[in-house]
């Protein structure tokens, strides 16, 4: 794969402890499997906002994947918390037009997720440097 990043891109340290917030367990499992093929990282999964909050409060994550639509709720309040805790994160959604994250700016990965986009999201410090298909909300 060609590396699109230029000399000026800031490459962040690969995360060591990753949180996946995703209400569909099949998708969470796949993402976990993909992540483990990319890094020797510890991956946790939460399918509800409450579970995710509990994990964030008790463990020190350095990266998170947030599915936006979690069925009856959405992950935007958690995004705010992660932002305040200075934890890097990206949104992942197949469909997001009805969401507005207001003050939060973070990369948006489109489902179905590609392994290159995931790798790029993990290794890039600033959203601006992220790969082509990474959009933004907010």
């Amino acid at each position, binding site marked *: 794969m060609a590396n699109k990043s230029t000399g000026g891109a800031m490459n962040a340290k690969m995360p060591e402890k990753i949180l996946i917030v995703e209400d569909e*367990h*099949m998708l969470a*499992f796949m993402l976990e499997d993909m992540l483990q093929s990319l890094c020797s990282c510890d991956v946790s999964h939460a399918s509800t906002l409450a579970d995710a909050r509990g994990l964030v409060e008790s463990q020190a994550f350095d990266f998170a994947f947030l599915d936006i639509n979690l069925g009856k709720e959405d992950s935007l309040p958690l995004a705010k918390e992660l932002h305040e805790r200075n934890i890097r994160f990206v949104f992942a959604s*197949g469909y997001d037009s009805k969401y507005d994250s207001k003050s939060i700016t973070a990369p948006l990965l489109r489902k179905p*997720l590609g392994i290159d986009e995931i790798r790029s999201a993990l290794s890039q410090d600033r959203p601006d440097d992220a790969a082509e298909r990474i959009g933004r909300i907010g």
Partner: protein
Amino acid sequence: MFHYSEDMLSNVQLVDATFENAAIGIAHVGLDGSWLRVNERLLETLGYAHEELLQITFQDITHPDDLETDLDLLRALIAGEIPHYQMEKRYFRKDGELIWANLTVGLQRSPDGEPDFCISLVEDISKRKADEEHLKTLIDELNHRVKNTLATVQAVAHMSFRKDEPIADARLNFTGRLQALSSAHDILTDEKWRGANFREVVKRALQPFDLERAHRVRLKGPRVRLGARQAQTLAMAINELATNAIKYGALSNDEGMVSLRWTKITRNGETFLEFEWVEQGGPACMALDRTGFGSTLLTRILPGDFRGEAKLDYQEAGMHYTLLAPMEGASGQ
């Protein structure tokens, strides 16, 4: 009342009759926006009494977001830049209800060519607008479902095609999984994606195997409603269990049986769903590949989506799978 064919009416009377009896709102509107003459249909559409409407202007009852466009077009009409105009706009009825109208405006000039008043046709199109809105919601919803399904198919593919599995087998398994997913979609489409009945999901997922007719699988359980996600995952789980039973378990010989039971049980005031797949009379049972799709689906993904717990046992009598989940988890509530 007059009769068109019998009475030779004056042009004035004919125009009056047309104005009053038209099934569309008609008005003469002053250049400042005041209503000069309005017909009965327009009063019905806007919900005002005759005297009330004549005391206000169209600006007073136009939705603020549509006002500028309307006024710009009116200016252009009066200036002679356009011969007439048409727009879809919102009016506030007297009772406060917002309606959509199709407005068509022409200009009457006096004999010396100066603009005199506007002739406005106002057609209530609220129903069409509501239909369009509904259609847009449906398309958004469909888009959402298609994207979700594509993501699910990606996950199924990701887990089906693995380095250590022969490609021909993987392809066969993958197709079976897509068929199971599709069987759940059929039911959900019939039910307008509001949910599905447990029995229906199980029966459709088993259909390709033709087992029920052969009395090799017995289904027993009450009516239980499942959420859309839960129905899809269950259909795929049933597909894995049946495939495994045919290859290695109770359905790999001529006498083995599968009992598929689900029950509602109450514990400490909370209602749970218990689902069991019990194999009997098969060959000595082999454990599922613990890292394989079937095993992952049954022990991790199905209980996850149902917010419950699962147990996969390999007893001498055959495989025994149990899922215990709160009813709210099963119904996706």
